[in-house]
């Protein structure tokens, strides 16, 4: 409990809060890295997921590959990519995207797959093209599961984005590494608490989005 109050005091100290390397600036970095990683992962994974879900082909390959990617130790990826491309944001971003892709991919194809085949057949018998079936039936109906995939990807990435600090890219990980090495545990806990707060805020946003998506499905 003592560490906990010390950590809260550390957060409240204006000297730690503001400035270039302050908690606020680092928190923004943390949020920004998270959103960027999930966005890049989405650009890769959502079209791929729809393709797999719509055609039903390549499912085994995609699931196995993305499952394997999920098992990659993130610190190892950061180090390997960092050794090739140098320090900075690129290496942790590659690792975070690799971490986010499997969840988004699963959300995208599972959403499309889970739709009752009779619904799709009905759409086709109304004369819809395959493209129309995808955009007018499969994507809207699959939205709740896709948002669920994005949600779990975001949650994993927001915590793991602390590793950006390992290669000098900043984020809240700065305080974790510094606190660990200088035995400043209140500082470590403070940063960990902020990561949790950011995760909870993002969770709240996804919860709202999921409700919206579900409601729209019901009213249609």
């Amino acid at each position, binding site marked *: 409990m003592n560490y906990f109050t010390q950590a809260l005091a550390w957060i409240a100290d204006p000297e730690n809060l503001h400035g270039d390397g302050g908690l606020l600036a680092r928190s923004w970095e943390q949020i920004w890295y998270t959103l960027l990683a999930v966005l890049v992962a989405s650009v890769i994974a959502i079209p791929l997921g729809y393709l797999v879900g719509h055609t039903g082909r390549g499912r085994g390959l995609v699931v196995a590959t993305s499952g394997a990617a999920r098992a990659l130790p993130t610190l190892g990826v950061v*180090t390997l990519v*960092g*050794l090739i491309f*140098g*320090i*900075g944001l690129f290496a942790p971003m590659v690792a975070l995207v690799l971490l986010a892709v499997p969840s988004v991919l699963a959300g995208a194809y599972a959403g499309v797959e889970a739709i009752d085949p009779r619904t799709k057949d009905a759409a086709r018998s109304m004369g819809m093209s395959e493209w129309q079936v995808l955009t007018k039936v499969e994507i809207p109906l699959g939205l709740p599961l896709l948002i669920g995939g994005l949600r779990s990807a975001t949650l994993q990435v927001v915590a793991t984005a602390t590793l950006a*600090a*390992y*290669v*000098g890219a900043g984020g809240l990980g*700065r305080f974790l*590494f*510094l606190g660990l*090495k*200088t*035995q400043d545990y209140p500082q470590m806990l403070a940063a960990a608490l902020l990561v949790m707060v950011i995760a909870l805020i993002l969770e709240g946003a996804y919860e709202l989005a999921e409700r919206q998506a579900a409601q729209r499905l019901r009213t249609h």
Partner: protein
Amino acid sequence: MKTRIAAVLMAGALALSACASSNPLGSASAAPSGSPTAGGATTTLVVGSQQYYSNEIIAELYAQALEHNGFTITRQYQIGQREVYLPELQSGKIDVFPEYSGNLLQYLDKTSTAKTAAEVNAALPAALGSALRPLTAAAAADQDSYNVTKANADKYGLATIADLAKVGDSIKVCANSELEKRPYGPTGLKNDYGLNVEVIPVEDSGGPLTVKALKDGKCDTADIYSADPSIASNDLVTLSDPKALILPQNVVPVVSAKVNEQAAAVIDKVGAALSTDELVALNALSVAEQQSSAVIAKGWLTAKGLLS
């Protein structure tokens, strides 16, 4: 039903607390603690090491030399931090531990003003207290050092830390983030050498990512341990420290009262043969050839005639 759940919870809690209180080094304390005999043959000594490959190699040097001289050795390697293993040493659960003089002194006595290797060594016995004592510090040192690329050293004529002023008004140092808080970090560099320094945090303790960042020009100088073979293999130049800003870190064995004079003499013989160059060579066997500490130690001790 409720009571049954409570019973299960209680059992679980008991099991947990049993785990928490059982000592991870229990086997070591359970080892026979026979009093040091003249021959030393019945004495079991516990040798520990930090979670640092080079430290484990040094520990293994002590361990094998002691075994050769009739001592029974229990190994407790790869213990993370000083605040974990030092209490174990003080309570007599570990008997021999390779330490680094400056950092050990600073840990034990934060007010210490010792700067040179001799001053540090002189201050250690009192700082360690009555339960522990340092043996003779080796010539080998493994300490923070500021390094530049050969190309930049030639271009700007860099030999000492003070020369970094020639590179520019603001100097970037690639190092673990804790350098910010260290006395030899930005504050010390400003006070002793008049340098304005910014730390670029790379958290692999002067490892390959730090070296890569230095070679990529992301920083002007990098903090790398002086016994790291990558300094030579990457053709880096270590800047000298004429103002003795960086605390010397000579390898010094810290031993418990169980280590008798005969054992101490064995350990000191190993230390006497260990220079920094020798240590770098030992580390290189681990880094470049991936040899185990046992193989490296056996080869070195044999070559030095310490196993004959």
